[in-house]
């Protein structure tokens, strides 16, 4: 009987119900879109924190001081202080040596092409045999550290640069990778021989053969990536590297590592020992700093540093918008409910005259609101999923996957708002007396 009455009230008053659903759906769609963006980044961040591998960036102390003004780096020491290549094997001598899967040193400079264009020239190791004490077959290089680097063609040989003696390019010159974007721009293809002039240090000219085209999705795509020894020779910075990317197997972040990160003073010696002897990325970074003189190591939280920082800043704004949207829709529901009750006062009077208690009439009207909330919430989710694509394209330049967790959250929120909106006007129900309304005195 109760369900029949509920269904009837929707059929009879459908115009007003459609309006109420629309109000709820509007605010729910806005909230869905904002939450979806936030959750998208939040999930990626938490996946990053929970993963079992991480990259650690090792750079000389002082090199990582940001002195950027208007996008230009004014740090006078930038690129002028180095780590020593001979210290690199120490990375495999720390306590967690076996958890270091690989590392790749980098030496970055700029070079001038024959056409007079300045291009970034990076020196690194690709897949170099580097025997260390604990592992005779250890291979260092970007192929282990950055497995997502895709090369069209073949990988250059790390030892090419060392044997390159003649300057005239008569012998087979060292190989290198050209970033895909750069190669397209310059019209280079695999097998091309190029001559570039290094603009740092001793400013020598080097001859190189393009062995492959590099696709990474990062800034490497517009750079030349050569063997480390070639760049060291070209600049005269022999035996030096600027930074090292270390790839390590780690334990996901937990309470202790967060405490060590944010509140290092509060951990006691017992906790310090446990932290040091657990393969947290922060503990490994700390041990790398101990192992390599004058180095500072920090984990690379890629999402947390990029999109995460953006979302973190606008999260408060999102919360405020959410609350405002729901308050507005709650007020709309409230006024709709008040008119409905006054309009249907004779019906309420009749129900009461037939023996319905106040509670039962409340239940009918609040159930109506709940149904409106559910339908509005679902409609809002659907609309919000579309809206978040538009926002995603605007903010991050990519579409955003829809997160199913939003459906229950939004439906729950919408029902709560609809109920909250109808609570105040439904107090009118108690004030209606059957005799009065049925005689038409109110």
């Amino acid at each position, binding site marked *: 009987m109760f369900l029949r009455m509920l269904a009837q009230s929707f059929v009879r008053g459908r115009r007003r119900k459609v309006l109420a659903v629309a109000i709820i759906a509007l605010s729910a769609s806005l909230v869905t879109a904002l*939450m979806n963006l*936030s*959750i998208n*980044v*939040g*999930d990626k*961040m*938490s996946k990053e*924190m*929970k993963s*079992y*591998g991480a990259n650690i960036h090792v750079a000389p102390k002082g090199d990582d001081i940001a002195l950027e003004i208007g996008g230009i780096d004014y740090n006078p020491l930038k690129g002028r202080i180095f780590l020593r290549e001979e210290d690199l094997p120490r990375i495999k001598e720390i*306590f*967690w*040596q*076996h*958890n*270091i*899967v690989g590392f790749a040193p980098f030496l970055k400079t700029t070079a001038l092409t024959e056409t007079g264009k300045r291009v970034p020239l990076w020196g690194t190791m690709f897949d170099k045999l580097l025997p260390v004490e*604990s*592992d005779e077959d250890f291979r260092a290089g970007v192929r282990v550290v950055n497995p997502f680097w895709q090369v069209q063609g073949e990988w250059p040989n790390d030892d090419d640069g060392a044997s390159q003696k003649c300057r005239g390019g008569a012998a087979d010159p060292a190989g290198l990778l050209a970033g895909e974007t750069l190669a397209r721009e310059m019209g280079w293809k695999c097998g091309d021989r190029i001559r570039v002039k290094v603009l740092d240090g001793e400013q020598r000219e080097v001859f190189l053969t393009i062995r492959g085209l590099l696709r990474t999705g990062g800034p490497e795509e517009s750079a030349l990536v050569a063997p480390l020894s070639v760049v060291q020779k070209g600049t005269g910075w022999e035996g030096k590297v600027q930074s090292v990317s270390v790839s390590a*197997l*780690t*334990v*996901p*972040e937990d*309470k202790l590592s*967060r405490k060590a990160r944010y509140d290092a003073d509060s951990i006691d010696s017992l906790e310090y020992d446990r932290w040091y*002897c*657990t*393969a947290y990325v922060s503990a490994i970074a700390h041990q790398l700093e101990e192992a390599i003189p004058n180095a500072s190591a920090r984990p690379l939280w890629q999402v*947390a540093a990029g999109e*995460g920082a953006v*979302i*973190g800043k606008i*999260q408060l704004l999102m919360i405020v918008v959410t609350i405002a949207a729901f308050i507005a829709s709650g007020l709309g529901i409230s006024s709709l409910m008040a008119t409905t009750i006054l309009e249907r006062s004779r019906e309420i009077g009749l129900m009461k005259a037939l023996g319905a208690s106040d509670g039962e009439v409340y239940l009918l009207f609040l159930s109506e609101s709940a149904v409106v909330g559910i339908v509005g919430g679902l409609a809002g989710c659907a609309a919000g999923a579309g809206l978040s694509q538009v926002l995603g394209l605007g903010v991050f330049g990519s579409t955003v996957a829809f*997160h199913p*967790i939003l459906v*229950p*959250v939004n439906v729950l929120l919408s029902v709560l708002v609809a109920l909250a909106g109808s609570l105040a006007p439904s107090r009118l129900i108690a004030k209606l007396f059957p005799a009065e309304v049925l005689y038409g005195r109110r």
Partner: protein
Amino acid sequence: MILFLTHCVRAFLPSAVLTGLLFALRRPANGKGAVRPVAGALAFGLGGGVLLFFVSRHQETVTATRAFLDAAGILSVLLMAGAVVSLEWMRSRAGLFFAAALGAVASFSFLTVCAEQALSAVSVLNTDLLMNIGGVLAGFSLTVFLVPLTNRLASRCGRGTLSCFFLAACALLVIPWSAEVLLGLMRLEKVALTSARLTFVAKAIHYSFLFPYIHLALLAALALLFFTGRTAFSARALSETAKPARRKMVGRMRLEARWFKCALASIGFILAVFLHHDLYASRPPRISKPVPLTPDTGGRIRVRIDDVADGNLHRFATVTEDGHVVRFFLINRASASAGGRKKIGVVYDACMLCGDMGYRQDKNDVVCIACNVRIFVPSIGKLGGCNPIPLPHEIDGESIVIRSEELNKGAQYFSQVVDVKGKK
């Protein structure tokens, strides 16, 4: 999500049951109006507990505050019990104090448990955070529903039975609370640490997971009493009554049946959640069963390389002369890209740092169970970090030979001992 649901139900279940019983105890004496002050006191207690938790965490006095709260709780329980026994309680304010103390202790202990597991790994809104909040909300609304449920179930009982139930539930609370107080006082060095005190505290904390089950059993007993004492009208009695009265009778029976079904469903659900947590979710991962091996007459164990070269972890166990069960495992540590080369790592199933919990294989990774570190598979067979302890061995053509003298040396790393007398 389920973890937070469990913690929430576990923390608030006793308070919910006791509050329901308190309502039932007070009702006949004071009529309908008795609900509001108690509910107010309970809400005040819950809020106060939350506030106290954050203040004490900021002041770094969580232990002291907890001991103090538990002591206040014990005091309130004793007062309340005295009031119930002496039947003087209806006029006293012990009920209000009791409800406030219950709420404060429950919310404080819930937050202490929650603080150990972060709601979310990162500060940006994410699925885990929403799921965990959902778990807390679901658990809290379930326990809130238990209050009217208990009240309704208890309404069938006589005063004496009700008091018994109430006192039993109170006694169940006093045991863990007094253990907490004692532990707090010992940690703050206010009382001396004696072995008897420590034994009591350790036992109480070790078996503390049982108390929510007993509360649940009390609730089930109440439901059973409610069911046996339900209103039942015979078919004849129904047919003899006039229509309006009959409808009321049928309505009453239906209502009682609904409450009973609700009680069954809630108890079943909470029991399932508890069992899931205690029997499954909170258990550490287990190692796969080792294959038992015995050395041949020459004191050697032979394992064919081809049998263990598939990249999986092959665990074996042998019993040394002094009865230690020594586990070791073999794994092909050459990566798949090595072109079919076979490099077998032969190691004990134990770690220098973490002991003999062992290692397990999770897809391509080998994981130390004790500290959850992923072991870099090519490094298995080398000492250092959390790597398994290498086991010296020889390679004899197609098989790996392990001498039993080496295994006897490795017995020191393992704690499992079996009785070997039967063999002799």
